Each structure stands twice: as C-alpha cells, then as structure tokens.
C-alpha cells in the first residue's frame, strides 16, 4: 500500500498548489492533476466504476472551469488584510483535525470493513437481480430510490443553470450574438 500513501501525498501537494497558484488558469490545471490522482487511487482501491466516472467527470468539470477563467486570467491581487482570513482558515482546519482525531478509534480498521448490509448483496446479488456488476445492481435495483433522488438533484441543478442564463438573455433581447471561437 505504499503507492496509496504516495498518491495521497501527491494529491495534498497538488491541492495546496492549486489553492496558492498566482493565476487562475494554473490553479484549475493543478486541480485537474488532483482529480487524476484521485482516479488512480480509486483504481488501486478496487473501484473501477467510480474510477471511470471520476475520470470523465473531472475532464468535464475542468472544461467548465476553464471556460470561466479563459479570458479573465487576472493575477490575484491581494487588497489588504490577507492575514485574518488565512489565520481563520488554518485555525478552523486545525480545530477540525483535532476533533476528528478523537473519532478515529471508532472507525473500522483500514482493510476490514464491517459489511453489515453489503454481505447480503455480495452473497445473493446475482440470484436476485441477475446483474454481474454488483455496483449496478445496488444503484439500480436495491437502492434505486437514491438514484431517483440523484436524478432530481441533477434536474434541479440544470434548471438552476438555465434560469441564471435566461435572466441575461431577457434583459438585452436585441443584442446581436457575437461569434465565438472555442
């Protein structure tokens, strides 16, 4: 499990770099590196479904973020008082770390999960649903309610984005559309 520690340290370094980078574009690119490290970690932890989804979702979210920052890669100019917010952030993170350290003995040991519910899925998933991929059988058969809720959240988010856009369009209806090259 050495490679797991290596990948996690890489992800932490990459995220610190993403937060401290001077311009926004390199920050977004560093975030992409963190996401790919996460994808490799999922693959090592034997979760191929999650790894595939993470890979493609990371690509799409990086495209969206880059479109937000493409022509506005302004350098981050601190306008006074940067001391207090960073002190507050570090302080909150340290407090969270200290509190969470007390919870660690209650967690299951790494490598030995509890499997209280999932043992039934593992034993009789193939007979009850007929799907070889047990993750698919959990998503779409045993726990399809969760997936329905997820679909509702996705629909709501898309409607929210479209509503945010529509407001601009209605304000200036006669503005000619400019040509954009992607």
């Amino acid at each position, binding site marked *: 499990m050495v490679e797991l520690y290596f990948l996690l340290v890489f992800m932490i370094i990459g995220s610190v770099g993403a937060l401290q980078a001077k311009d926004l574009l390199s920050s977004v690119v560093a975030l992409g590196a963190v996401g790919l490290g996460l994808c490799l970690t999922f693959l090592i932890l034997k979760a*191929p*479904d999650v*790894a*595939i*989804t993470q890979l*493609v*979702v990371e*690509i*799409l979210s990086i*495209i*969206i973020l880059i*479109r*937000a920052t493409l*022509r506005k890669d302004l350098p981050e100019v601190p306008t006074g008082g940067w001391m207090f917010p960073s002190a507050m952030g570090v302080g909150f993170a340290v407090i969270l770390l200290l509190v969470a350290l007390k919870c660690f003995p209650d967690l299951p040991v790494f490598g030995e999960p509890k499997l209280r519910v999932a043992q039934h899925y593992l034993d009789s998933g*193939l*007979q*009850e*649903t*007929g*799907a*070889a*991929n047990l*993750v*698919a*059988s959990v*998503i*779409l*058969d045993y726990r*399809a*309610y969760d*997936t*329905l809720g997820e*679909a509702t959240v*996705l*629909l709501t*988010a*898309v409607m929210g*984005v*479209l509503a*945010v*856009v529509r407001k*601009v*369009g209605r304000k*200036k209806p006669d*503005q000619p*559309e*400019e*040509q*954009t*090259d*992607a």
Partner: protein
Amino acid sequence: MPEKPEPGMTILVKTVTRLTAWLILLYGIYIVLHGHISPGGGFAGGVIIALSFIHLMLAYGKEVVFRKLSKEMVELMESTGALVFLAIALLGLTTGYFFGNFLPAGEPFNLFSAGTIPLSNIAISFKVWAGLFAVFLALVLLRIDNVGE
C-alpha cells in the same frame, strides 16, 4: 488566407476530431449498454457521450452542433430520460413495490439479462448527457453575453 475566418480551431484539430468523435460516442454507448456486466453504467457512459458532443463543439464551433441537435431537442431528451426512469419505477409497482424488478432476471453474464437494470441505465444515460450538455451550452451562451458588456 480566406477573408472570412471559419469558426472553430485549425484544420489539424478538425481532421482528428472527425475521426475520434464517433469513436468516443460509440465507446459511451458501449459503456452504457454493458453497464450491468462490466464496469461503467449510465452515469459514466452519459458523461462520455456528452463529452463527444462537447469535443465536436470545441473543434467546429457551435453552429455545426446546432445543425445536428437543437437546444430544445436536448432539453426534451433530458425530460424524456427522467420520465422513462420514473415510468420504470412505477411499472415496478406491478410486482408489489416501487422500483420492483418486473422483468425476469434472465441468464447471468448475458447482454439481455438483469431485468430492468439495462433499461434504467439507458434512461439515466440520456438524462445525464442531455443535462450536462445543456449546462455546457448554457455556459457558452452566457459567456458570449458577458463579452458584450
């Protein structure tokens, strides 16, 4: 040099896109259809299909994609995916409970097996790709408005 520059990227990118966009689309469809016997499923496959359209759009500009697929069509497909998923859930009531697996389980490790799971995968993939592609279109159009200010 032509007087009127074409929308999109250079000819190199366009040629490569013409070769790869359909392969990406086919790979997404494969991932969706085999979601119950191999890694993948509706979510990953839906995002891959959306990425193939976005790939086409980034390389060729938005008019080419709009000629194949209008925005109303995308929104219609998203609603259709959600409704089909809900209909599968309601048809499950015929076996007694919501989301009941009303089709026979069939032969395991076969493409046509696992009851309603492949149908749900297809519905979810429609929903995911249409939703994400609608979001992408919305962000692109929003950015055009923004430059004008």
